[in-house]
């Protein structure tokens, strides 16, 4: 009887000590982030209340279609700039003035998928004037004016589908590019209506060069280069010795049209396409391009009328590189490259092949020598393909898994994001040796260093933009926050400082010194410069006017009342246009305007600005409107009435604001 008991005791003891051992040996478990964060990380990201961050970080809003602005190193969200998507908060895309910003050849498109912010540049360095971002779905590029942090201009890209390889800038923002992620059949209706499996015969790609006007920010397409039917992923401009060249990463050289995840992953090497854009510019100037059909919109925000203007085009200047020659060259690059990044000196081009086990670094000098010597391994659809070995500076061996994107610290080091192994890898551009690696949480996509793709990087931080967050934050149901992570790169070892949540999927981002932008920030719009056709620049200019079935109200706001705030004589079947001018001339005094049953959104009107809300009354009676932005101690009193009468009624149209003195 005793033996079994002893045995049980022995077993229990063995199991118990087993548990003890498992717990006593935590090194058997994978490391958690707690081990990753060092003691003074908080100190390095703490920006005390009332102080400013050192950098602005412009982060793509992904499928939100917008762009977010963060301060670094704090990771504080400063603003979401409406770009490709309607924004009910500001009335962007709802007000009569902003609706034309979202016009395309497909009509009014109130959403897009925004991927890659790109700062405008002077001499290859960020100049803080504009930031561009691409719309991936309905091919577009937007320009945001950094004096107002508003979308200034949007251009549609014809003969493109999926504007992913965009909007990378030349060193003086002569051009920003737009390479199509889909090749498609182009031309007449009959030429476009072809079987999908005739891909190899009929499908072509394009890369477009968009020219933004220096003074106005108006955009037009200078020229478009027709390419073989492959897909473009990313791009980057040459600089310094390589100025005048643009490099595009290409995938699907297999020309697959179905199950691309397999069929476009067969070739050992795809391409980086080197484009001599100075040559293209010259060909275009010499009239050696061909005008081809391509309907597109260029939308521009007129700052003096506070209204968007549309320009439509029906054709685009296309250059055929096979016909013209000396324009584009392919460099073999393993394998389905994503990133295509030029170092600050302009001498090296790094290809990041998503499926490759190494990182090739190409030498611009060797590319030029190979072109001069016609050192080709063959042709691809009539385009010369340079010999891989002839243009290679060297390879970084076993850098990690799934290299996506590389930026630079300005001290001779490169940082590459590894999607599959979820880490950032630091390596040296000359020795090509891996120096350090640090995990990201989880599955990093792009990374960015302030100025890290320009001639002048500020090698203080690298920021990881992650695809997955899982357990990093309090859960919010199945849909979790998106996230970025800030790392210090000032020492030899990278150091994790901070996680911060982002809006929408953060694809790429660019960080830049805050000072030059902060200094130029507009505080309000000058009323005397307001050239809006329906502006009321004082309460004396307010009125109502009937134009057939339209009733126009010239309305003003000032703390804290509307003029007029009593309107009568509107009838069922009318459309009412509230043209609201904010008379304030001080910093941070916007007024909001909301009217009951409006099927659109509110207006948020900055001081000195005029914006218009169209309202179609749906019922008879006295309806209401009010100010939505807490403007003063008497904000709650900022409200008014509009009377809606039956269609045949003979109530006279009138509008008033009367004070107690008048009654």
């Amino acid at each position: 009887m005793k033996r079994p008991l002893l045995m049980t005791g022995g077993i229990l003891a063995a199991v118990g000590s087993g548990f003890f051992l498992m717990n006593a040996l935590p090194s058997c478990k994978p490391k958690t982030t707690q081990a990753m964060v060092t003691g003074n990380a908080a100190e390095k990201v703490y920006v005390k209340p009332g102080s400013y961050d050192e950098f602005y970080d412009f982060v793509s809003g992904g499928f939100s279609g917008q762009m977010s602005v963060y301060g670094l190193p704090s990771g504080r969200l400063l603003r979401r700039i409406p770009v490709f998507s309607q924004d009910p908060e500001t009335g962007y895309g709802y007000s009569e003035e902003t609706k034309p910003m979202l016009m395309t050849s497909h009509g009014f498109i109130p959403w897009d998928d925004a991927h890659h912010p790109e700062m405008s540049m002077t001499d290859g360095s960020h100049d803080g004037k504009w930031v561009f971002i691409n719309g991936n779905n309905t091919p577009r590029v937007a320009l945001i004016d950094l004096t107002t942090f508003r979308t200034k201009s949007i251009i549609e890209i014809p003969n493109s589908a999926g504007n992913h390889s965009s909007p990378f800038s030349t060193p003086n923002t002569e051009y920003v590019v737009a390479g199509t992620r889909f090749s498609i059949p182009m031309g007449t209706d009959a030429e476009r209506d072809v079987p999908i499996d005739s891909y190899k015969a009929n499908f072509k790609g394009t890369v477009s060069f968009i020219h933004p006007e220096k003074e106005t920010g108006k955009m037009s397409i200078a020229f478009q280069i027709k390419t073989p039917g492959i897909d473009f992923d990313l791009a980057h401009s040459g600089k310094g010795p390589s100025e005048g060249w643009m490099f595009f990463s290409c995938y699907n050289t297999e020309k697959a049209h179905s199950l691309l995840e397999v069929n476009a992953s067969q070739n050992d090497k795809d391409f980086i396409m080197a484009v001599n854009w100075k040559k293209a510019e010259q060909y275009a100037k010499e009239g050696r391009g061909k005008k081809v059909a391509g309907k597109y919109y260029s939308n521009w925000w007129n700052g003096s009328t506070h209204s968007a203007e549309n320009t439509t085009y029906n054709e685009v200047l296309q250059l055929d590189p096979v016909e013209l020659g000396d324009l584009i060259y392919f460099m073999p690059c393993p394998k389905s490259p994503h990133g295509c990044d030029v170092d600050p000196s302009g001498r090296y081009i790094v290809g990041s092949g998503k499926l490759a086990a190494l990182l090739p670094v190409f030498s611009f000098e060797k590319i030029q020598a190979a072109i001069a010597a016609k050192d080709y391994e063959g042709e691809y659809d009539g385009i010369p393909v340079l010999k891989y070995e002839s243009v290679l500076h060297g390879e970084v061996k076993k850098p990690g898994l799934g290299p996506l994107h590389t930026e630079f610290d300005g001290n001779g080091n490169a940082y590459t994001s590894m999607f599959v192994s979820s880490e950032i890898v630091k390596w040296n551009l000359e020795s090509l040796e891996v120096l350090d690696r640090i995990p990201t949480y989880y599955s990093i996509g792009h990374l960015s260093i302030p100025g890290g793709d320009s001639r002048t990087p500020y090698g203080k931080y690298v920021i990881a933009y992650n695809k997955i967050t899982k357990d990093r934050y309090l859960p919010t149901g199945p849909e979790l926050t998106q996230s970025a992570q800030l790392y210090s790169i000032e020492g030899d070892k990278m150091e994790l400082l901070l996680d911060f949540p982002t809006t929408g999927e953060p694809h790429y981002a660019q960080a830049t010194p805050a000072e030059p932008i902060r200094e130029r920030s507009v505080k309000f719009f000058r009323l005397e410069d307001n050239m809006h056709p329906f502006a009321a620049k004082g309460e004396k200019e307010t009125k109502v006017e009937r134009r057939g079935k339209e009733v126009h109200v010239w309305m003003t706001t000032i703390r804290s009342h509307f003029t007029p705030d009593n309107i009568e004589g509107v009838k069922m079947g009318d459309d009412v246009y509230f043209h609201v001018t904010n008379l304030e001339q001080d910093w941070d005094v916007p007024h909001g305007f909301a009217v009951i049953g409006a099927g659109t959104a509110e207006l948020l009107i900055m001081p000195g600005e005029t914006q218009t809300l169209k309202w179609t009354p749906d019922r008879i009676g006295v309806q209401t409107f009010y100010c939505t932005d807490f403007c003063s101690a008497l904000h709650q009193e900022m409200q008014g009435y509009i009377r809606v009468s039956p269609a045949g009624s003979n109530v006279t149209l009138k509008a008033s604001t009367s004070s107690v003195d008048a009654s």
Partner: protein
Amino acid sequence: MIAISALALLVLLFVPIWRIDLTAPQYPEGMTMQIHADHFSGDVEKINGLNHYIGMAHIENDMFPEFTYLPKVIVALSVLGLVASLWGKRILLVLGLITLTLFGLWALYDMYTWGYHYGHDLDPHAAIKIEGMAYQPPLIGHKQLLNFNAWSAPDIGGWVLFGVMGLLAGVYFLEWRELRRKRSKT
């Protein structure tokens, strides 16, 4: 010396004479109103926008007849000074000094009465009424007016005016001492 003083007076036509600075929790950047010989400058519109809550009058240049005759007075004073310097009669210097002092005192009094009316004669329909509260700005120095801190002080023109007065007084004193020395010698 007197001529320089007389000409210096003309500076008053071109620079602000007095200034009122305001700060509040929600105006960390502050607001300034500057009073010139013939107009206001600075953030007058902003101040007006705020003052309507408590029923203070809208400040406009037309409200002040002073703005039409003040420049003339300044020119006249300057001419008087010039005449004094050319003619060299001591009585004229004394006269100039007295007029100038009177002018200064009158200006301060005028500003006080204006400030008094401005701060007390409030629109009875004003949105914010606080029993017994008046918003008279300080003549000189600091005062708390609801959420605002107000400072009132001479601007460049004011300092020039004081300088001129000091200079003339100095000249008068020197002349007086010289005269006494001459008298004691004889």
